[in-house]
């Protein structure tokens, strides 16, 4: 008969047989790789911008972080006898996000240690992708914050001026370090904040564009929002988690964040710190976030509330990273509380 293709394992069979598999036989064009690399692509603009804000060393730190995450992933998968899946981009994404949440003035050695911790202990020991309870990048950050508290809380840099992207190379970070807006606000009060960063529309716009001290990738609200919007457009994420996080942060900051009740500045709370990065790129991590809509909203509200709690009353100026970490293991609990609505129960059955 006509040109037949025979599946390999059945090549010896006397009758030529066609491939058989369970339905469905067609699949959507989406894949894990595509999702991961799209997210990576969405994070590229803020990374490029950070080179112009904090200098060229941010690129170096990011590269070290990404390479070490990929290397650790490959080595752990080899060592544990699993399929090496570094091409799916999840390790690249972890590395990128890890670099995004550390200060721009730290030593590049830090992300290497964090990568070992985040990828090996945080992910592969627990069964690999899909089985980790905590967002590996944030776990890496928490590890760094615990191990190198001084570097992680003080290696902040002022934005460079007039494209002097090499100006921080070779300088001692102690000499040029500054404080993040949230730290100034928390430790020295609103007056010192206004003195250091100005006020009014100019402040919001420069903060929104990213011209402020902060972690490598968190500063540019605009580019992160654009990236997030693209993910929303591609339907890789839904508005539930980011919307409820940002909404809760804004609302609670407005109510409790000021000198008196209802005197806080919700807009400032969103554009300073890592709220946008956290809401769009960290909290929406598939593995560690809940899956049903209601639980996503509850999850987002809890993250927002914890963020504001830590920002206003806690020991750290920025709380979103810990808020997400604290809520991560609860996502399974939330999913089991808010199960998807079944089509219809059996008649006369469970009421």
């Amino acid at each position: 008969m006509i040109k037949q293709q025979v599946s390999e394992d059945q090549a010896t069979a006397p009758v030529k047989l066609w491939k058989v598999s369970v339905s469905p036989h067609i699949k959507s064009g989406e894949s894990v790789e595509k999702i991961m690399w799209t997210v990576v692509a969405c994070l590229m603009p803020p990374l490029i911008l950070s080179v112009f804000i904090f200098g060229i060393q941010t690129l170096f730190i990011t590269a070290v972080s990404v390479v070490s995450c990929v290397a650790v992933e490959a080595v752990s998968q080899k060592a544990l006898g699993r399929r090496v899946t570094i091409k799916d981009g999840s390790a690249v994404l972890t590395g990128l996000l890890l670099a995004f949440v550390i200060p721009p003035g730290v030593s590049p050695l830090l992300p290497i240690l964090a990568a070992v911790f985040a990828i090996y202990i945080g992910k592969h020991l627990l069964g690999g992708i899909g089985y980790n309870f905590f967002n590996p990048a944030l776990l890496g950050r928490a590890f760094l914050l615990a191990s190198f508290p001084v570097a992680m809380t003080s290696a902040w840099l002022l934005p460079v001026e007039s494209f002097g992207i090499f100006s921080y190379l070779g300088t001692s970070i102690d000499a040029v370090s500054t404080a993040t807006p949230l730290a100034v606000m928390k430790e020295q009060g609103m007056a010192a904040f206004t003195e250091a960063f100005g006020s009014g529309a100019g402040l919001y716009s420069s903060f929104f564009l990213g011209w402020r001290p902060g972690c490598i990738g968190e500063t540019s609200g605009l580019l992160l929002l654009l990236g997030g919007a693209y993910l929303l457009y591609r339907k890789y994420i839904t508005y539930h988690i980011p919307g409820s996080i940002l909404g809760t942060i804004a609302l609670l900051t407005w109510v409790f964040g000021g000198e008196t009740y209802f005197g806080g500045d919700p807009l400032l709370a969103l554009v300073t710190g890592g709220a946008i990065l956290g809401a769009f790129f960290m909290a929406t991590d598939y593995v560690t976030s809940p899956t049903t809509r209601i639980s996503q909203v509850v999850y987002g509200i809890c993250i927002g509330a914890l963020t504001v709690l830590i920002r206003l009353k806690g020991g750290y100026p920025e709380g979103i990273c810990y808020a997400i970490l604290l809520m991560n293991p609860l996502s399974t609990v939330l999913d089991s509380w808010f199960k998807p609505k079944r089509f219809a129960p059996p008649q006369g059955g469970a009421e």
Partner: protein
Amino acid sequence: MKDIITIIIRLTVSCMLAATVIGVTFIFTSNAKKHNEHAKEQQVMLELLGYKGDVAVPDSISMHEIYRYIISGQDSQSIGYLVPTGHGENNGFFFVNIDLNGKLIGSKRVDISEENSRDAEIRDIAMAEAAGSGFVVDFADQTIVVTDSGSRIAYLLGGKFQGFKTFINVMLAVDPEFEMVGLEILEHEEDPGLGAEIEQDYFKNQFKGKPFEVLKTIDVVKKPIPAEYLDALNSRVSEEDILKLRSQYRDQDIYALTGATISSKAVSNGVKNIVKKFAYRVTILDNVLKEQQLAVSF
């Protein structure tokens, strides 16, 4: 029924045995414990004064404890001090009552031994007696005056204030001119690697040698410590250089710990307040003692 009786008897016997064992241990250890605690306190104090390690403490050094009480009456308050009269044979205390503006209200002799004065309960009772009826006494703090052959060489002050996490408990030594001699952090719960660095010599030693004038207005600066000063603070250079650098940075504010400004600030503010309050009080007390010509041990 018989079972229950046996059980009860056996349990009672075991309990009594246990209580005996524990009681005997307690009797044997309680004195040692008290002694050790006192010795430890003494050691901290002496270390603050500079008698560390091999440096022997000369016999001429002695310590005198002053206890301060708040005496509250119907609608007035005053400060009562318990001032030691001397060691050994003629030991005992003076009760000195001073009003809030520094005027003497009265003084009287209180006969409790030095040993007993360390026991808070006995002291409180003696104090209440001395203050008279209708007054409530509350222990406020205690200060130690250190003398060398009868002349004062230092005061040891304790204090507790808010840190970044919980409170910080310190003890510090100042000389009669209220210049800092030393600072020791006794208790704190600051973050390891950050606020906990207040325990480190390079932070504590910054206070050494600061004169009262500087201490009164001391603050922190958020700048890295200059390398040469850091070496001196860590005692990595010779004694002379340390003294030289100390005097060079004498008028300088405290360099804050990197990443722990709040803890650093808490310590410097706490130290400032303790020293200021003490300086104010000890001047008044000294004046009163002089006026009344009370023979105190220091």
